């Protein structure tokens, strides 16, 4: 009795389930034995260097690309045998928004509603209003800024009320204010019960996710809550304000106990083995001829974690 209850619960709450999901292109392994689960209601930030397999993963989960090995279930459906069921219940916003530039905002959305077989005649209006697109609904896409196009691309991905939404670098090339507005929309969708999987190169966006996955060379190296990922960073973070910047960086990189040095704004973030003293760093920089204006311990960020994990 218990076991069967758990089975029911499992089907309801697990939105993505992969087992050794693998994709090869010739001798190149784009996605290498991926095993993970995503529960309903989560916002998964999927990170990784260019070419690490993020888009290939999404395309397999949508049934657009067949796995070379392994399997995956999305919303309880097998991505190969039941790909139409998967796509009917999932939304996808690709890196290159597929919009008809000579059509208006309303026409584009109505077109996608037709493709998805949306029956509710009010749905197009509803989506236009909920995403704030109503004021531009009569304008041709070619006359719209990137920010509006991005919003329309999101609208076309949710017009059929999907339970799961894939967003592939939705905020690339968008200004900081528009990025924030877009994330407000993601939260609203998430609050309505939509599960979201989103790729990004912006580490501040990853902080807003409930789960963060990090890929490198086709392998999923971590999948955790952002807070736990930051706690798991093995080392101490320092913020170093020193001039000139690049020689200071190079001097620190050579130092024993220093694991990683990165440019961060107009200062450096340094990760060292735990227990290293502040004075030790200070003296080394001064001895190398650097002008140190400030040196203080810092809190780990997701960027630190990303650099440590994906930098290998």
């Amino acid at each position: 009795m218990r076991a069967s209850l758990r089975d029911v619960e499992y089907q309801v709450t697990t939105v993505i389930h992969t087992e050794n999901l693998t994709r090869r292109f010739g001798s190149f392994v784009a996605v290498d034995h991926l095993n993970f689960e995503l529960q309903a209601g989560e916002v998964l930030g999927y990170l990784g260097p260019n070419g690490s397999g993020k888009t290939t993963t999404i395309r397999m989960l949508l049934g657009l690309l067949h796995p070379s090995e392994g399997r995956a279930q999305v919303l309880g459906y097998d991505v190969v045998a039941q790909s139409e069921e998967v796509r009917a219940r999932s939304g996808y916003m690709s890196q290159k928004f597929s919009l008809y530039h000579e059509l208006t905002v309303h026409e584009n959305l109505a077109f996608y509603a037709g493709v998805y077989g949306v029956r509710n005649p009010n749905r197009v209006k509803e989506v236009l209003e909920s995403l704030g697109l109503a004021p531009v609904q009569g304008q041709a896409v070619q006359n719209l800024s990137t920010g509006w196009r991005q919003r329309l691309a999101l609208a076309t991905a949710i017009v059929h009320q999907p339970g799961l939404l894939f967003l592939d670098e939705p905020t690339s090339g968008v200004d900081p204010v528009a990025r924030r507005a877009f994330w407000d929309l993601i939260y609203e969708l998430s609050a309505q019960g939509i599960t979201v999987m989103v790729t990004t190169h912006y580490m501040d966006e990853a902080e807003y996710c409930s789960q963060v996955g990090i890929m490198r060379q086709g392998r999923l190296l971590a999948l955790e809550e952002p807070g736990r990922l930051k706690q798991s960073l093995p080392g101490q973070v320092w913020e170093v304000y020193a001039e000139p910047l690049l020689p200071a960086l190079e001097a620190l990189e050579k130092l024993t106990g220093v694991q990683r040095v990165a440019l961060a704004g107009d200062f450096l973030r340094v990760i060292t083995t735990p227990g290293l003293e502040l004075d030790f760093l200070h003296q080394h920089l001064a001895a190398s001829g650097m002008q140190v204006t400030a040196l203080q311990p810092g809190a780990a960020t997701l960027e630190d974690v990303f650099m440590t994990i994906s930098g290998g």
Partner: protein
Amino acid sequence: MSEILIRANGLHKTFGSTHAVAGVSLQVAAGELYGLVGPDGAGKTTLLRLLCGVLHPEQGEVWLGQLDMAHQPEQARQQIGYLAQRFSLYEELTVLENLRFFAEVRGISAQHWGPRSQEVLEFVGLAEFSDRRAGQLSGGMKQKLGLALALINRPRILLLDEPTTGVDPLTRQEFWRLIIRLLQEEAPAVLLSTPYMDEAARCTRLGFLQAGKLVCEGTARQLRARLTNRVMELAGQPYSLLASLAKADPGVEGVQRFGNRFHLRVQEGQLQAVLQRLAGSIRAAGGQLDSLQPIEPQLEDVFIQLSEGSAL
């Protein structure tokens, strides 16, 4: 005083009814790194194209070093290296062949391009990949090849249009190390646009472009000083309660999420009042207040304020 290498005086450019660049004047000296920031559609790309002579202004002039773009466009342009936002490589040609093609287009003689190619490939770290087809390069390597192409003619002036958009954090780090090294070794005048505030903070000077106008110019420190004593950080639970209470406070102008915290922008002179009032209202509503304190404004706070048009 370093030589002024880029000088724009009162530039105007319209497309139909859009005044894309509406009276921009700026100067960039040798060794300077000038960052152009601003909302999407503010005119950043158009301004860069005017500076490198791809577009002609209806009014105003561009001087590069001692040369006037309107009268000596060929000689003026020979001093420029330009990396467009979506630059194209010949994917079926090798790294070296791409460089040769570019060198020929730029009129570099056969005896000079060979040694120079080697030099720039070593500089960007692609020397060992010179025989690889461009189509076989990773995203990060393509970015470096783009920079190598822009450097082939030993430019004194480097114009980069969002060189790191869509690029992962590791590649961004490597790219920036190259830019800083170039500045240290050859002191060109560099002007770049970027949507990343951490990159902007690294520039020697910043210009904020809005609706075709340069509304604010200065160092990152000067720009941040615009909001001194006007930004507070709020941490606690639950997020939605904190956000709505902060937004409802009469002294608060703006509420933005930064990771797991909020930044509140308060009206001039309202810091203490908001501090007391908001702490009380959060407790009264049963919220958990972890911290509420004034902080140093970040560049992103300033960007958001300027984008809202509440600039002084």
